[in-house]
């Protein structure tokens, strides 16, 4: 089985971000550490779980991003993936999912993957589009929001989450000539921590730099402005010591007539 997992890096901590004075981009402090997008860690773990079940599985990891993204590729390899690739993208301007998916497609096309996995969305841009768009560009099926993968004989069984606790139970024959793309929802598994020795080994592995062959299309969308998210309700702040706040809170709740 040949699996590709698409991952991206996100800032380790969202708390210290702010917007530049022109309101055109999110400023990430220079000393900010980056980590793998949480949903992508679940995708990597899902791929490794398959590898543990089916011998001769090869897992490729790809990311599109600045060169610093190499560290998340190495982490995925420390978790158990085989080969790492990066498509360098240092552009300061926003790359839309359409753009990223086109770069990923130029890499994945003709590589005959059986499965392509990626997180359901990224924690920073939160588009939840890139996987589906990659599938559209490759002309393959994509199944979104997967919360369970189970292999038996030559079939793959999938569980997709829908609203209100409804689940769809799906299956497919594992067929050499048909790639399936899955976007992975959190909750499918618990991503493993790579052991120190595995991390050290991964650190010495070569990450292949792939130059994107897809021509950069004219942006399909442009960002007009970014700002601190709007207040939808004008909240009252309780001030004072914790005791003051607690007393005031209880009084307010009494007024609303909700206490027992």
């Amino acid at each position: 089985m040949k699996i590709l997992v698409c991952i991206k890096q996100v800032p380790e901590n969202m708390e210290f971000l702010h917007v530049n004075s022109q309101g055109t981009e999110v400023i990430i402090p220079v000393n900010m550490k980056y980590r793998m997008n949480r949903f992508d860690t679940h995708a990597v773990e899902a791929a490794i779980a398959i590898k543990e079940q089916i011998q001769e599985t090869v897992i490729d990891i790809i990311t599109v991003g600045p060169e610093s993204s190499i560290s998340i590729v190495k982490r995925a390899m420390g978790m158990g993936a085989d080969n790492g690739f990066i498509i360098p993208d240092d552009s300061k301007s926003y790359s839309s999912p359409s753009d990223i998916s086109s770069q990923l497609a130029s890499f994945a096309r003709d590589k005959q993957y059986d499965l392509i996995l990626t997180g359901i969305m990224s924690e920073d841009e939160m588009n939840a589009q890139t996987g589906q768009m990659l599938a559209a560009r490759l002309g393959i099926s994509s199944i979104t929001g997967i919360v369970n993968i189970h292999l038996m004989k030559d079939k793959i069984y999938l569980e997709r989450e829908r609203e209100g606790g409804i689940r769809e139970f799906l299956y497919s024959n594992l067929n050499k000539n048909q790639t399936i793309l899955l976007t992975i929802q959190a909750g499918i598994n618990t991503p493993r921590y790579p052991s120190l020795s595995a991390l050290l080994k991964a650190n010495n592995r070569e990450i292949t730099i792939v130059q994107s062959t897809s021509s950069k299309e004219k942006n399909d969308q442009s960002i007009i402005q970014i700002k601190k998210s709007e207040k939808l309700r004008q909240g009252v702040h309780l001030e004072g010591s914790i005791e003051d706040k607690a007393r005031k809170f209880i009084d307010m709740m009494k007024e609303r007539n909700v206490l027992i």
Partner: protein
Amino acid sequence: MKKTKKVLMIAEHINNNLSPVSKDLIACANSIGNHMPISLNTILIGKKLENLAKYLSQQGTQVTLIESDDLKSESTVSLLDIAGKILEPYIRAENPDIIIAGHSSFGLSFLPQLAIHLDASCITGVKKITKSDDKLVYTRFIYNGKFDTHICSQKKITAITVLPGTFSSKITDKTEAGVIRHLKAKPVKKGPVMIENISKPANTDSSLDDANVIVAAGQGIGQAENLEKIRSFSEIFRRSTIAGSRPLIDMGWLPYKYQVGITGKTVAPDLYLACGISGSSQHVAGMANSEYIVAINTDPNAAIFNISDLCIVDDLLSFIDKVLEITGLCCQKI
């Protein structure tokens, strides 16, 4: 005179009922209508949906019912996996300016792919639409709800998904039932993934629907054991229950039926207390319509405070202890 924009909505249904997000689609379309003249058409894919079509047609939209032989009762494929293929030829013929779907498992299962095939710009999780220089500006959350980004489409067709609960849907007077068209979809080429069955909704405790007060816990409670404290806190309120945010449920701290948010339950109690919840858009979409919202969080910049009526920046567990201590004393006095 300004050119009328053609707006196409893709409505959702489940168990022969319109999904709640269908209301959000109409509210979103009406918001576009505040900026420019629009013509509305709503698509429903499926069988025996005449009642739903009639209801929709009374909301000021034309309705197109698309029936597909690929979705017979013994269907072997999920609607989610062929909806895009069913819609594509129809949308090409219709040539809309804006396509609106829900920010839901259904909408997200086909809209990004359609956008690629139709050379459209795809903007997901839209929560507000304004106009600047004669162009529509779409607002969506980024960075877990910390920032808003305002986006303009550079393509002729714009495909958007609407974040539930963000467009105010004041009940408009029903209009005369509009035109309902019936279409038969061309058979589509199916993918390799088949459907075995669809589970019933998780056995939802009706307690979330019935409660006047919901005390919801997030990752900020630190560890599973602290849920007991949340439970005690909820017990000082009348007709109350507890709930949790997605990360908490994923970690197995609470069963699925207690999840509030986009993939869980949508609630609107009289009082919602968000305890240690950061306020990601995924969570907010499930509780934004609550009557009164209280947030307790140590991070003064947490996005949850943007939607709260009462903001308490403090250590959650110490605050709850204090409240329990004081209410305990009050009770003794009586």
